[in-house]
């Protein structure tokens, strides 16, 4: 019924580079990233809620994360056709 407010940013993750420090999990301020205790790896569980803030990527010393924003998936919601 309603248009979606989900974003379509993507997060590329290279598990082979990850050393399991957990900083990316702590960094996410909107609960996109969860922690897999057993394998000591991040789980990118709610990517549709990502705000492309880049904080997780900036925390990862091993360059295992790349955030790829899809700006067009964010709304402006102004009442002129080009800014919907």
């Amino acid at each position: 019924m309603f248009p979606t407010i989900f974003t379509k940013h993507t997060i590329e993750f290279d598990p082979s580079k990850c050393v399991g420090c957990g900083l990316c999990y702590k960094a996410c301020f909107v609960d996109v990233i969860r922690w897999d205790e057993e394998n000591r790896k991040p789980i990118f569980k709610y990517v549709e809620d990502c705000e492309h803030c880049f904080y997780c990527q900036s925390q990862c010393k091993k360059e295992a994360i790349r955030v790829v924003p899809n700006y067009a998936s964010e709304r402006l919601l102004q009442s002129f056709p080009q800014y919907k």
Partner: protein
Amino acid sequence: MDYKKENLSCDVLIAGGGVGGLTAAIEIKEKNPDLDVLIVEKQTTGYGGKANKGGGVLQYFRPDMSPAEFVKFHVENIGCYLGDQDVMYKYVEMNTEMLEKLISWGCNLPKNPDGSWFVIPTGPMTSMITVDLDITLKMRQRATKLGVRIMDKTTVAEFFVDGDKIAGAAAYSILDGTFYVIKAKYVVVATGSQNYRFASMWSSGRGDGIAAAYRAGAEMRNCEFGNFTQIAKVKSHDEVVFGENNMYNAKGEFITPHFRSYRETDINSNAIREWYWQMLAGTGPVHLEYPEREQESRPAPAEGTDSKEGGAAMARLFDRPYGRQFRMLNTISSQSADQGSMEICPLFIGEQSPIRVDGDMATSIKGMYAIGDCSYTGSAAPGAVPAPPGRNRGSGILNAVFAGIVCGDAIAALKTCGCAPADIPAEKVAAVEEAIYAPLKRTAGHKAKDVIDLVQRAVVPIEQSVYMKEDRMKKAEGIVAEAREASKDLCAEDWHDLLACHEAEAMVTCAEMFYAASEMRKESRGWFLREDYPDIDNKNWLKWIIVQNVDGKMTLHTEDVPIDKYPNKPE
């Protein structure tokens, strides 16, 4: 879904582990180490919140300028006589003390080689200095060292009140749903502002702390100043701070002089209105130009002010090791999206911050305090502007630090009754628990995002929130009423989604407060603009609008601003 239950108790419960919550925790422990302080943070204390996502600039007042001078300037040009001038004075007076405290807590504030502050002049009467973006991490370390207890990934959902006094809070883990009943002698709400989950970076402000305080009966003030809007590039949605000084329409006309004649401290709502007018007149889109040769045509600094843009100093702005990479990643990404396009459009940010507090940051509920972004306009200190930046760059972090110190001192001195809280009656706990978990028990109903979508459709279009008129407000209120209806049968899939449901409901409550107060204020003042009441009305509207939940009903009344006791009065 099954979940565990636990009872906890502490002397001071701090909801929210951003810069405000951390300041209060540290201040209390430094002044009164015997108090047992517990921070409950929805995400991760020190990493969450906003202070580490922004510019990390701090407002700086030259020591040779008297606080009274700045207060006068602020009251006349920014707060438009709606502010609490005493609190603003105290904030300015504490500037150096706050900066020194941040340093003593381990934060990195770059200085010049000779030990003097590295100051960047910004606007009339104001300058800024910087702090590295690990500010809250350093503060978390300091708080931990002092013995502050921290519970992360746990959200505070409801406050318990016993008569007129705070008794504690209900919280749950967003990881496994564990339900906590936390008894506390004092509660500090430090949960940030309401940003309606719209603009990236700002969207962690979801107003659930504000809504919980409202439900508990705390008074709200200046709810109508909850509509901060910035201009942003249309492709990347990257905000352009001070861009309003360089606006052009599609005909190539320089339109900034339509709304300002001298350089102001920051963007004002009339810049957003100008964009709207240009679009309506068919002379959009609006873009920015920075023609170097024409710099003299830009609004000049106001007479007698130090409004140079800081030249070389600006270039050193991100000379901070921790924040640099974070800034760079953002800049590179947005530049590649914009491809040089300078077209702009308003970006709604929100920043409603209405929990009413006094000079100690005490709310109208005994033992309950509110600090930082959740009580910025509620404190009335800044007057007729929405929460930080509040047309005052660098006032966000420092306002939170200021409020945290003031409230920390009051609590450490056991100013309000520090006696043990009454037991929270079992039936009260059961009712709250049932309400919190209800969305998980429903198998059908509305999703959180359905409700959030509706609220955003009401508040985001600028003619419904920044440049308002009765009929447009009515239209928006209709959409909010639809959202309220939809919020009655919210259904959640997991704990993460349950949190989104509570946030969605909080957005409805905040939008309701915003429109109720906005309709009542029949004038334009400061940031608050109405097409149908375009003028400031000092005769009838030197008033604060107070919103309160009385037995489940939203009530509104006005209170006169005690202008007679303040040094600065309108003519």
